[in-house]
């Protein structure tokens, strides 16, 4: 062979060598192609589990999962079908159905597309009877609320957003998750475990059969049912009493911290946020000027008003700056400085009478005694001590309940006033704190928790809505822990006596809450606010010895606490303790009481 023949032969060998080296690289060395091949042919399809049910404390169903189906189609396989009949079944117009099909065709002729979301089981059965080639249904679950109440408490579910999908491996685009309320707090319990079927598909996504005879499939695990502490009957009564009044009712079982009632008014029918009208209804609720989607029970920050006198009284007793026998005069109010007005009642009063008659003057004296206590060597140090007491009652921080979106309220500190008054302030400057006004802000849950704390004479359990989770012996350990206040039990007894008198004795501010034989102890509050008429509030517990229920009622712009909040609270207590309502007239009185909300309604455009 000549020189050129040899060169050509070498060239041929070189070409094949290069091809083989490259083949060796991608076939033997580089693994990425093997993984890519797996991803190509295996289709993983999620099997959605039914979501866990939610029950009330008596076993009544509050939230259930109902089967729902998505109508899908593969445009290529769609044969001639009765468009009108299918549109009727799916509950859409024929034009809409045609438009969706056309959209699906444009997306892909061979891949499945969603045509109609969330059709009912009945519709699905009708669909199965008909002949609709190329269409099929996929199982999803939908929520249904048989009692149609406690929307804010139970919450709603919605499609996950992209950020959640990116953050949490569990979710994929299009999944549902709890967006608010119990649905959100207990998402991980309720959602169950998604299942998986793995199929082999061809390049068009057409299934060719199960992968490894179905050995790789995982069955979905249904979500776990939750029994809440809520008393459905009581909740219904609370919502009925509130009507379209704006405010909140919270009832707690003091001996456990379980939340029996949680009304945020105005509320909404949770069923409105399910199904195909969800979007429209949601927007309507969002636009409502009274903010029905806002869970006032844990998210609002109200001035506590006179109910906070209980806290100041207890601190003063514990600090020894007043005793059971200390009496202060009151002639129309506290007269030092700009003064604090008071209503007409007998004078002078001791702690018990001051609580009974809600005397402003007494608590101004007591509060200033706390701050001017010489043992702290200065008002600022004394105020720090006062802060610590108030915090121990659960104010100024989130209670760490299991209610979604719970806020911390606000308790001013020395820093707050140093900023406002540029460091120059004294006990008189802050005197409005003595009667629960000023910078203080509390959630209704914190006020109900105060009622429970006083009922327990000095401690509280973290309020919680969960009572039992199926298949678990206990709920979260934090709900079994007693939180003691920094005030001793014996001082509580004095204040409780005053609260008893407020309901039972002439001159008491909470007389409207009186129910024979129930020994209700209560405290009214009338909170000034910059938006209009005073807020009405009332907190109480009953019976006096061995308390079973503690209630806090807050009615925005309801005026005097004793006239609207106290009746509502007493009706709740009566219904809970006796299962009957003896004063139907009071129910009618409360329901017929109309309150104007120019502040909210002005915002409506």
């Amino acid at each position: 062979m000549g020189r050129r023949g040899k060169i050509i032969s070498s060239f041929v060998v070189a070409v094949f060598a290069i091809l083989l080296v490259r083949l060796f690289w991608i076939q033997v060395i580089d693994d990425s192609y093997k993984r890519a091949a797996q991803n190509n042919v295996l289709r993983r399809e999620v099997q959605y589990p039914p979501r866990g049910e939610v029950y009330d404390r008596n076993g009544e169903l509050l939230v259930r999962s109902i089967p729902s189906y998505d109508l899908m189609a593969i445009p290529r396989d769609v044969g001639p079908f009765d468009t009108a009949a299918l549109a009727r079944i799916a509950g859409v117009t024929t034009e809409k159905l045609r438009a969706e099909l056309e959209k699906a065709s444009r997306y892909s002729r061979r891949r499945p597309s969603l045509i109609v979301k969330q059709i009912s089981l009945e519709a699905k059965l009708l669909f199965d009877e008909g002949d609709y080639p190329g269409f099929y249904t996929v199982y999803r679950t939908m929520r249904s609320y048989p009692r149609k109440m406690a929307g804010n408490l139970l919450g709603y579910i919605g499609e996950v957003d992209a950020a959640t999908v990116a953050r949490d491996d569990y979710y994929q685009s299009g999944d549902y998750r709890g967006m608010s309320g119990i649905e959100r707090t207990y998402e991980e319990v309720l959602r169950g475990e998604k299942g998986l079927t793995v199929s082999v598909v061809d390049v068009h996504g057409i299934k060719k059969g199960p992968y490894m005879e179905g050995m790789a499939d995982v069955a979905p695990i249904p979500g776990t049912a939750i029994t809440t502490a809520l008393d459905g009957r009581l909740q219904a009564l609370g919502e009925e009493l509130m009507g379209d009044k704006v405010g909140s009712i919270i009832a707690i079982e003091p001996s456990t911290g379980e939340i029996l009632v949680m009304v945020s008014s105005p509320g909404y029918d949770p069923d409105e946020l399910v199904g195909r009208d969800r979007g429209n209804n949601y927007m309507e609720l969002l636009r409502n000027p009274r903010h029905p989607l806002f869970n006032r029970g844990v998210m609002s920050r109200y001035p506590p008003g006179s109910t906070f006198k209980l806290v100041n009284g207890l601190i003063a007793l514990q600090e020894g700056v007043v005793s059971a026998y200390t009496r202060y005069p009151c002639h129309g109010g506290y007269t030092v400085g700009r003064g604090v007005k008071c209503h007409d009642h007998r004078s002078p009063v001791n702690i018990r009478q001051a609580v009974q008659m809600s005397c402003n003057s007494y608590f101004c004296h007591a509060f200033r005694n706390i701050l001017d206590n010489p043992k702290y060597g200065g008002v600022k140090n004394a105020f720090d001590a006062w802060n610590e007491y108030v915090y121990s009652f659960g104010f100024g921080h989130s209670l760490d309940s299991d209610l979604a979106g719970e806020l911390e309220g606000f308790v001013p500190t020395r820093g707050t006033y140093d900023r406002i008054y540029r460091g120059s302030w004294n006990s008189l400057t802050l005197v409005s704190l003595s009667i629960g006004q000023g910078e203080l802000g509390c959630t209704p849950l914190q006020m109900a928790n105060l009622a429970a704390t006083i009922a327990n004479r000095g401690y509280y359990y973290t309020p919680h809505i969960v009572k039992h989770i199926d298949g678990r012996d206990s709920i979260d350990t934090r709900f079994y822990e007693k939180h003691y206040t920094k005030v001793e039990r014996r001082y509580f007894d004095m204040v409780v006596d005053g609260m008893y008198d407020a309901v039972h004795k002439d001159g008491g501010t909470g007389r409207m809450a009186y129910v024979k034989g129930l020994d209700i102890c209560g405290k009214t509050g009338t909170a000034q606010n910059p938006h209009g008429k005073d807020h009405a509030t009332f907190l109480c517990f009953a019976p006096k010895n061995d308390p079973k229920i503690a209630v806090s009622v807050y009615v925005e712009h309801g005026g005097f606490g004793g006239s609207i909040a106290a009746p509502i609270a007493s009706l709740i207590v009566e219904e809970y303790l006796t299962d009957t309502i003896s004063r139907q007239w009071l129910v009618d009185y409360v329901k017929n009481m109309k309150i104007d909300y120019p502040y909210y309604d002005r915002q409506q455009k």
Partner: protein
Amino acid sequence: MEKSGVDWGSVAIFFALMLLGWTNIYAAVFDETATGGFSFSTRYGSQLMWIGICVLAAVVIMKVDEIYYHIVAYPFYVFMLVVLLATLVIGTEVNGARSWLRFGGLSVQPAEFAKFATALALARCMSSYSFSMAGLRSRVYAIAIILTPMAVILLQNDAGSAMVFASFLMVLYREGFNGWWYVALGMVVFLFVFSFIWTPTLLLAAIIIICAVMEGVMNGGWIRIVRYIAGVALGSLAICMVWLAVSPATVDYYYSLLAASVLSLVAVGVYAWRNKLRNVLVCVGMFLGSLAFTGMIDTVFSHLQLHQQKRILDLLGVESDLQYWGYNVNQSKIAIGSGGMFGKGYLQGTQTKYDFVPEQSTDFIFCTVGEEWGFFGSVVVLGLFCWLILRLIKMGERQHEAFGRVYCYGVAGIFLFHVMVNVGMTIGLMPVIGIPLPLFSYGGSSLFAFTLLFFVAVKLDSRRRENGEL
């Protein structure tokens, strides 16, 4: 004298490849859910029928006296040109190329047979007594024979089939074409590829070094070369410094290097001219040519069709769009790469079975080999092809007549080009050019044309002793 000079070894390799090809077509179109038995309407059925026809054709070719191939070479060539032109007018358009003729149910791609006709005609031309590589007229004839069908096929918009005619460059080289032309061609390819990948400065530096090294190869004197390169580097550095001092904002390394090298070349050119150093002038010319060509590439590139641009950029790794242009190659690489050492087993390939690879029984048939037989199968198939091509070259070398030698080289070149480009394409070494893998890709025209090509070579080879004695 032996009775038969048939190279049975090559024939055996040829049929082994044909059989392997058929089994892989079967795998590529295999559908386990399909019912019913064997049928000629399926691709593997139809291919089997073509194999039968090819065996018959092979027998006929072996029976025909080799003198007829000399005689029919030109008439057949002219006939094929007419058919190609006719196809341009009455052909059927497939994938944008008007390259198919349809007779009832039978579709023929004339370009496949044009290769055969050209190989014969080229052999005839280059074996004539008056032919001499040194003569300009002879070279023009030979090149015209190659370029004419190529041009018509390009007009059909079938760039892939047209490019196959480049394989005759191998024949021309064997018959005495100047090797420097091939170096120049290699340089063109190099510049084309790297002008997309490298920065202009780096490319310019590479050109300077290549030209200098080439000069070294021709004239020796390596120390001189090193000194020259160092001088240019220092010169450009100096220009850079001056530039930096004058106008720091506009300093440009490319133009510094360009200025240094061009200035040095003026000196080198004058020196070479005076001393009549022709080789140096060749290198200077090559340098200037390279510069001009690099400048031209952008212009030419912008005149290519969009899909060609995309494929080139995709192949060079400059741009990659896996869902669009890169889809074919990516899926093909996945199929082959997932085969591993020994493959997934016959009919077990998931990528090919479920149609992830496009055109998998035609242009991408090698995916089936790679996926189901793994690297082992790749070695066997490519080994057989390599062996066959080397045997064809050997066949050519042992011919006593130029006709047989040119023809055998032509066949070897066509096989090599097809295998190199087709397999290279499936593993991302070559742009996606739609040409079949010989004896593997589904399609009667291609199978039949390769049978003709190969068996005529075998026939010519089998008669070499008798002809040699003449």
